[in-house]
């Protein structure tokens, strides 16, 4: 008993001595956290000797806001959504991050040009990109398979019901893409009344064939049950269904909707230097590429794409499943939190009024 006490005191003394060399990272838990531990944390500790404490939260923005408001910040790096990153930055809770301090790509391209558009915010650096993509059940069609967003709206050539999420954010853009609007102009068009009318007019053409989904697990189930022949779905979910469950699904990357997760550092982070080191390390080209071994989310750097290897099962080539592959980026719409912070309420009302009208 006494020995244990002495030993544990000695150990905690050691731990205390090491506190200068640690960093607290708050992330989302689950398979996503595992991918970060494997790809970022282990090599980071091996290289710098700084210990990484991983803390799981339902949504890390919530404890971040609470800690800042209580004036007692204990986390150093937080993994948050883009909208939260911008909001918290606007409220002055976060440290501003100069992109010049981020490491350049292996070929020397500076970070500013290497990250995908929108990945570098005033106070945040994106690590992964995930997409909402169209997926179809190959057993539902014979001969020609659908290939574009326009085919999603063509129920004559490609019969069957369609799955769409019941919100304006992830439906209106798809209608416009299918109607021929280039991805780069989506928000300009959606910002006008005529543009919104145009999107709803396009949605009208398939309104009676749509099964509306609410939770992320639903579209995969709808597709597997044959309830819909085509649906939009989060790319990580459909990857799991295709690879782990061998479902006969295919992905159409045309008109994918991209979201990002971002690293932010609160202003009063207790281990500020280590936090900055961690952020630089975790968002370099190799680490982001390594993460794709463990989860089907795309690296936020373009230079990582060529380094993406096999999935952890050892046989699945990950590159074609990345939302950031050249094919996937060709006609991709990036989430615009500023636009939606302005328009969400108005669009939600209009969308629901449209749903209710027959």
């Amino acid at each position, binding site marked *: 008993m006494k020995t244990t006490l002495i030993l544990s005191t000695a150990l905690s003394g050691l731990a205390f001595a090491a506190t200068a060399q640690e960093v607290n990272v708050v992330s989302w838990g689950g398979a996503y956290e595992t991918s970060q531990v494997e790809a970022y944390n282990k090599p980071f500790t091996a290289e710098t000797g700084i210990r990484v404490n991983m803390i799981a939260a339902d949504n890390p923005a919530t404890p971040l806001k609470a800690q800042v408001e209580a004036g007692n910040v204990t986390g150093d790096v937080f993994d948050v959504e883009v909208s939260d990153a911008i909001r918290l930055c606007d409220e002055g809770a976060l440290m501003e991050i100069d992109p010049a301090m981020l490491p350049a790509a292996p070929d020397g391209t500076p970070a500013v040009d290497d990250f995908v558009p929108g990945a570098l915010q005033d106070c945040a650096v994106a690590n992964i990109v995930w997409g909402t993509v169209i997926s179809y059940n190959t057993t539902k069609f014979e001969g020609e398979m659908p290939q574009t967003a326009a085919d999603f709206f063509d129920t004559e050539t490609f019969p069957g019901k369609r799955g769409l999420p019941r919100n304006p954010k992830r439906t209106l853009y798809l209608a416009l893409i299918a109607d021929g609007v280039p991805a780069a102009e989506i928000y300009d068009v959606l910002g006008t009344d005529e543009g919104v009318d145009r999107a709803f007019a396009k949605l009208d053409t398939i309104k009676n064939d749509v*099964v509306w989904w609410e939770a992320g697990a639903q579209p995969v*189930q709808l597709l597997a049950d044959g*309830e819909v022949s085509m649906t939009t779905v989060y790319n990580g979910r459909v990857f799991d269904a295709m690879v782990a469950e061998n479902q006969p699904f295919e992905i159409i990357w045309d008109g994918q909707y991209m979201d990002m997760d971002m690293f932010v550092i609160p202003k009063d982070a207790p281990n500020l230097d280590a936090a900055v080191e961690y952020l630089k390390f975790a968002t370099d080209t190799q680490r982001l590429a390594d993460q794709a071994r463990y989860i089907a989310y795309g690296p936020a750097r373009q230079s990582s794409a060529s380094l993406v290897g096999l999935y952890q099962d050892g046989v699945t080539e990950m590159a074609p499943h990345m939302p950031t592959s050249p094919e996937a980026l060709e006609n991709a719409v990036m989430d615009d939190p500023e636009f939606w912070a*302005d328009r*969400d309420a108005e669009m*939600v009302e209009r969308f*629901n*009024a449209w749903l*209710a009208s027959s």
Partner: protein
Amino acid sequence: MANVALDPHAAVVSTASGGPAALTSADGTPLARALARSQRRARRRAFLLVLPLLAFILITFVVPIGQMLQRSFYNAGFSANMPQVSAWFAETERGTDPDDAAWAALAADLTAAAEARTVAMVGTRINYDLSGTRSLFTSTGRALRGGIEPPYRENLLEIDQKWGDPQLWSVMREASRPVTANFYLAAVDRARDAEGNIVQVDERQRVYTMLFGRTFWLSLVITALTFVLGFPIAHLLATLPLRKSNLLMILVLLPFWTSLLVRTTSWMVLLQQQGVVNDLLVWTGIIGASGRLQMIYNQTGTIIAMTHILLPFMILPLYSVMRTINPSYVRAARSLGASSWTAFRRVYFPQTLPGLGAGALLVFILAVGYYITPALVGGSSGQLISNMIAMHMTSTLNWSLAAALAALLLAAVLVLYWVYDRMVGIDNLKLG
């Protein structure tokens, strides 16, 4: 002391003259006072016993609901962070064009808000009333971090032309008072125009009144269905011998104990177009393979799933009342010549009313606030008002509008409760 006061014999005292006198206890205190004192003590002890529950209800129920309701008419997002321009609004009449003082106040407030990093909150508040303005505030705030020089009007307009919009100034005037009815107006599809008149919003935006109507209509249908389905079951449960009725009771309660999500998902598996029910109908040849019925992801799905989920709330109160009904009343009615229908209608059914009232009230109130089931199986035509409340709570973050919608829902339910009390009488309610 207390013992003395409570001793009944001590009170039997009369004066020497034999006439009635004030009763006193053994120590001479008037009995009424002694009794009151001892009762006060008992009351205090009883109060201390319920104190934890009272505190619990106060902290977890009354305070949060009160705060939520307060949000529906009180929002200081603008007035607290933009004090100078709010003061200008307070001094001037509605319709006054912004003068130099107003522009200077606006510039000063925006600069201060940008420094304090509160400009996004201000923008969010204005955006509730005028869509598309949040970014105007945040982008102007970013531009103002280096300060601003006069002339303020020209310089602000140079940052963004939208600052000259009279509608924006009208909305800012509205928001400069923290107490507002605007969220309630929005909750019934109304808004104020630039002159401050209350007008209906654009037809394409009207959604809340329709959803309120649909919520109450569907809740009524569901209540009626639970009654039609639940009444015979409750009767069976109440009249069967105890062993059999216990077995049946377990069948009623088993789904009650199953997770709501599991039950909702099971309905999806059963009712979808490629689901069990449709497969069965096609197999038996009742419908063709191309004519599979759409029974879920619409209003039908919401009604079916919610009726099933809420059924126990109707059956249990009915059952508890039916068990206490003496069967000899019906036998007496029959023996006096009533037909079985008349005996049921005039003797049995009226006695079940307290249970029916309780069940109907429970089912209706639960249905009005239902959220997860319509969200999952409601498709486009089966959404209820609670889905919009949830949307504003979690997605658009307009808590004030969510609170106003919830307050209206609460008020409507209270009105119905009152009507019920007037028509049936709340004393007749029997929950078990």
